[in-house]
């Protein structure tokens, strides 16, 4: 894949991540740093949720690795100070869902028609036995400081055919306005 296409996809992934974290994270610290993606089968943190954004020529696997101490969102309902593992996983499924949706919209705005899966939660053993990112040729990762813990966001993608690269190259990395958080009345 052309270097330019890889760079553009990575920048769109980062943009979607920054938008998602910037709008919905309510933990005390949410700094985002570039990181090294984990190797296939490696589980950098005990828990993981992932979603797939895919079409005929482009597939992107979006993964969020986290631990019990990684609290990106505050639970506003009951037991706010004592969120269970289930509640934490539910919160990260929602973050992953929004992140994948934001990425899908970024790509749709560039003319790529893609679908999105529901977020799936796996634990460390599942991740080692079923390394879902196998076959994805390119990747990028960012580390998010979240409360007392960290979250690792990884993106693995696979491009087939030239149309994707051409579509992305045509539009380039010129930033379109970020519509997330907007309320448009009809």
């Amino acid at each position, binding site marked *: 894949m052309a270097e330019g296409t890889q760079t553009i996809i990575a920048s769109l992934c980062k943009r979607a991540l920054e*938008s*998602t974290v*910037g*709008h*919905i994270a309510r933990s005390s610290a949410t700094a985002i740093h570039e990181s090294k993606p984990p190797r296939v089968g490696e589980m950098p943190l005990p828990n993981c949720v992932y979603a797939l954004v895919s079409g005929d020529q482009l597939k992107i696997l979006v993964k969020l690795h986290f631990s019990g101490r990684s609290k990106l*969102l505050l*639970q*506003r*309902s009951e037991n706010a100070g004592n969120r269970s593992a289930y*509640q934490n996983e*539910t*919160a990260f*499924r*929602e973050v992953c*869902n*929004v992140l994948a*949706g*934001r990425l*899908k*919209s970024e790509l*749709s*705005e560039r003319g790529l028609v893609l679908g*999105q899966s*529901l977020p799936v939660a796996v634990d460390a053993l599942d991740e080692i036995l079923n390394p879902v990112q196998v076959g994805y040729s390119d990747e990028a990762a960012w580390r998010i400081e979240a409360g007392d813990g960290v979250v690792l966001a990884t993106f693995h993608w696979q491009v087939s055919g030239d149309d994707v690269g051409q579509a992305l190259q045509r539009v380039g990395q010129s930033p379109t306005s970020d*519509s*997330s*958080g*907007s*309320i*448009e*009345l*009809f």
Partner: protein
Amino acid sequence: MGHSVLIVDDSEFARADLKAVLEEKGFQVLEADTGAECCDMVKNNSFDAIFLDYNMPVMNGMDALKRMANENSRGSALVFMMTTETNPDLKNLGKQLGLNGWIVKPVDINQVAQFLVQKLTGGQVA
């Protein structure tokens, strides 16, 4: 009595989070986790506002909106799509079906709650 709001989202967390903030502002909040459940609930309840997620299994938000329009069941409820989708064709379809607004996720739910207070009460608490 407070204004009533229906939150329709397949994400339990998204519903609980928005519900908690709206209840803090005095709204009465009910939840549905599918478009089909939303369509059933509007037949038996009167709502002032409905927040509809778009991407949901079984019946998405737009199909729920269509069904409510066909069944003329939403009453006077303001309906807002709340989604990561930004496709202009979808927005236009929503407009044609009587949608009142489009809220792009990710969104600060405090901002959404404040928006609803303004919309329904002109700034007074619900």
